[in-house]
């Protein structure tokens, strides 16, 4: 079957229910040819499952097809940022951190504060430049819970979160955020992909506003991030 993800046509033929259950909103029945073909063989997932018995077969399929998509995305000028992305009043706000820091907790506080806000993707949005703007895209690969919408929204900013007693946000340079970004994305193994990847990162970190924030769990934290990141 064909999907439309991040404005690209993706050909994929899933075997297991977990992946199938996430694809519905992305199914594409138009005439465009596939930009990305994700190869799937049952044996591949059986081998991965044997290497990682803690993962079920369907989890192996879900994770490895996601990893394959995000690697191929690099060829089309896009990258994954491990982050929770909330959209509000036509802009996307990305909050990135290691698992367990509270990025999803923070974006879900946005939903309390702003009733029209929505989670665009709770764990793995794609970032891609179209024309002269950077967009966040929902994808079928959104983490444990199926919180993602098939849409594209212009990015207001990217914030790297850590926990704090009080709320504090600082705009940082691309160079200051480079390590954080590298640690929260899929770094390709192949040289030709790495060259593209580094060029994409250079542009994103030079052109998209980037912040670092210490925050607690409160609506005041939302005010702090929104006020700093919103476009005037």
């Amino acid at each position, binding site marked *: 079957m064909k999907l439309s993800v991040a404005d690209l046509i993706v050909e994929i033929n899933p075997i297991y229910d977990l992946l199938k259950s996430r694809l519905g909103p992305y199914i594409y029945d138009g005439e465009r040819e596939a930009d990305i073909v994700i190869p799937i063989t049952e044996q591949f997932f059986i081998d991965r499952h044997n290497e990682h018995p803690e993962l079920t077969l369907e989890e192996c399929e879900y994770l490895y097809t996601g990893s394959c998509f995000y690697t191929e995305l690099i060829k089309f000028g896009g990258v994954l940022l491990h982050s929770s992305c909330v959209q509000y009043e036509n802009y996307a706000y990305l909050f990135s951190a290691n698992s367990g820091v509270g990025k999803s907790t923070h974006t879900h506080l946005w939903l309390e504060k702003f009733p029209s806000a929505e989670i665009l993707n709770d764990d793995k949005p794609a970032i891609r430049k179209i024309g002269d703007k950077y967009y966040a895209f929902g994808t079928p690969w959104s983490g444990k819970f199926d919180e993602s919408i098939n849409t594209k929204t212009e990015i207001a900013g990217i914030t790297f979160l850590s926990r704090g007693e009080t709320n504090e946000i600082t705009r940082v340079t691309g160079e200051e955020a480079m390590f954080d970004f590298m640690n929260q994305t899929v770094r*390709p193994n192949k040289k030709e992909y790495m060259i593209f990847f*580094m060029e994409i990162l250079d542009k994103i970190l030079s052109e998209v506003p980037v912040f670092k924030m210490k925050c607690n769990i409160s609506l005041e934290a939302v005010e702090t991030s929104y006020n700093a990141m919103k476009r005037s």
Partner: protein
Amino acid sequence: MKLSENFVLKNIAGATVVMPVGDAVGKINGMIKLNPSAKVIWESLEANKDFNGILEEMKNNFTDVDEATLKEDINYFLNKLRELEILID
């Protein structure tokens, strides 16, 4: 002296960064940020220059630094690269 093929040097947001690829990914976990002199040495190695060739490039780029210091810097960095198996003799 030859640099391993398994590294990519690029400027990212104003910094000079080297990333491992292929077999080097398991050995070097992460990325290497180069300062301006390390960048000159790396690019000289990419251009297949020998020690004297690197020294010439360094002299051209850092005119206010004496030759003994430049040689020391080059040796220090080349040894680091050998330790990390980035430079193959």
